[in-house]
């Protein structure tokens, strides 16, 4: 690649192409603000504290899933099994969450363990077999759904303890607990991505896998961790969902993987790996949530909601590819 543009220029000036990239990155943020402004004008119910708290609460589950999937997509992979992981976690956690059975930490830990195990299983098969992640996680998706049905015998598990239901349904200082959990894990995931060796390696593996290997990075280790993390975050989302609807549902989370992937991609995560941020993904998830909430407030039928969502996803990917072509 020739570089007649860069070498002789004033180094303090931001390079042209970086600026274009930057616009792409802010593009999603601008789109988000724009949608919020439009909704505020169209329906007065939108811009109220209580509604905004509800939107973010509703978004929290998808956002947690999207954080996990962002890690995976960054390394050039994909995880289709997270929706099923939500179901397995939901059932497992609910089995241990009946009142007067175990302290609340037990369902949380068993649920998390279930998700981490499924994630680790994905990682193991992907690194050992070299079968594409798409196919492996598609298989895990079906296995997970089956496991959830077996464990629950096809029936929802209800009658959960109040302390467990507090996780997704409670409030701390007037703020719903899912929002607090969301913020905490947003910070953790951002730090992992931006400030740790592991995060850097994720970018490297997704950016150019052979070069990452030749730089001494253990690809398998990175992938193992990434899929396990993704499973763990899906488990967290599953626990939150279970607590929020106060039942363990074997058929929970159907199609959740698509919403999560959409959030990551709308947020600027490159489908080929190597680029993306947690902030972008969070905004992607918020955008999806805000649109769905806004259309509900306006009593628009779900048919149109689906069309709108599809247009946004394609738009985001087109924006992404335009940016890539410019560089």
């Amino acid at each position: 690649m020739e570089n007649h543009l860069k070498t002789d220029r004033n180094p303090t000036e931001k390079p042209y192409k970086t600026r274009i990239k930057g616009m792409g990155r802010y593009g999603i943020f601008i789109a988000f603000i724009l949608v919020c402004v439009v909704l505020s004008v169209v329906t007065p119910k939108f811009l109220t504290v209580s509604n905004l708290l509800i939107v973010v609460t509703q978004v929290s589950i998808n956002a947690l899933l999207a954080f996990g999937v962002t890690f995976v997509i960054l390394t050039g992979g994909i995880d289709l099994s997270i929706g099923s992981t939500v179901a397995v976690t939901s059932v497992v956690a609910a089995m241990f969450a009946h009142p007067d059975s175990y302290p609340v930490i037990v369902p949380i830990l068993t649920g998390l363990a279930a998700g981490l195990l499924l994630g680790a299983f994905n990682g193991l098969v992907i690194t050992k077999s070299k079968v594409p992640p798409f196919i492996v996680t598609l298989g895990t998706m079906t296995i997970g759904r089956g496991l959830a049905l077996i464990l629950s015998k096809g029936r929802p598990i209800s009658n959960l303890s109040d302390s467990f239901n507090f996780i997704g349904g409670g409030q701390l200082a007037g703020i719903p607990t899912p929002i607090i959990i969301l913020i905490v894990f947003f910070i953790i995931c951002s730090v992992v991505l931006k400030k740790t060796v592991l995060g850097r390696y994720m970018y490297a593996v997704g950016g150019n896998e052979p070069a990452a290997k030749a730089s001494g990075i253990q690809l398998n280790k990175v992938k193992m961790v990434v899929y396990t993390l993704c499973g763990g975050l899906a488990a967290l989302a599953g626990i939150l969902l279970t607590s929020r609807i106060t039942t363990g549902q074997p058929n929970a989370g159907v199609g959740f993987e698509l919403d999560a992937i959409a959030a990551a991609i709308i947020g600027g995560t490159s489908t080929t790996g190597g680029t993306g941020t947690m902030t972008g993904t969070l905004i992607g998830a918020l955008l999806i949530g805000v649109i769905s909430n806004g259309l509900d407030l306006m009593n628009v039928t779900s048919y149109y909601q689906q069309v709108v969502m599809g247009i946004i996803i394609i738009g985001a990917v087109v924006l992404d590819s335009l940016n890539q072509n410019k560089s």
Partner: protein
Amino acid sequence: MKRIYFSYFSAIFFLSLFVSGCNQSTSSEKSGESGGKKLTVGVTMLSMQNEFIVNVSDEIEKKANELGVELITVDAERSALKQIEQVESFIAQKVDVIIMNPCEVEASSPAVTKALAAKIPIVNVNSETTAKPTAFIGSDDVESGRIAMKFIAEKLGGKGNVVMMHGYMGQAAQIKREQGAREVLKQYPNLKLLAHQTGEWDRAKGMALMENWIQSYGADINAVFAQNDEMGMGAVKALTDAGLKSKVIVVSIDAIPDALQAVQKGTLDATVFQNAEQQGAKSIETAVKIAKGEAFDKETLIPFQLVTKDNLAKFMK
């Protein structure tokens, strides 16, 4: 009872559309070979992920054991196409009777036609198909919608604002339950349908939908009609969280255990009981009668029943 799950992936699964998982369960306790050849009945159920359907299926299995009938039960996973293939395979296996819990009114019809063409009797359970089967056992979903909305109308004294949560749009149950509800609404001009939207039969979606409605209409909502208990429970949760439950009536359909408990607690005002046990039992009984050449009813309608705190005891197990 033991269940053996045979799960397999078809060789190619590049598209999830083609992922074909199939849960077969065979009654493992072979009770009383009561002389002569044992009857074989093929059963295809809409979805084993739905509690009500699982209840129907369990009842069929229980009754089959009592009657000494060999069962082959498969899960159509909500796919009419898969259901047709399953029926084709029953035909190939030369079962004596087929029991089908249809996925869709139109799309599952060819299964009926094919079975009849192969001279194998077919019994539809729970929902209908356009093609007429040998016998039908089920309940009229329109009636359930009617019962639920009627309850709301009476509670509100014929005046107030109602919101309605649909199931998957276009499914038979959704269409009929909506039809029944709207019939009642027409009779009460002061009963206003404020908003209606799909919650896709799902508790979490129902809850999110209710939260958004609360933002939109707040205290204007007087009653919620959810087309199934899952969504109803979601609505109850959202209303409780918002501190509005005492002011809003919630009614849903199916009478799943969770909903019955909620009725007992007083959080859910009413649910409508669809008798899974009777549907299951009647369908296998009818199937056996047909196979043995005995007289049978071409249509057995099992009535819905409104469940409130007053008559709850009858339905709790």
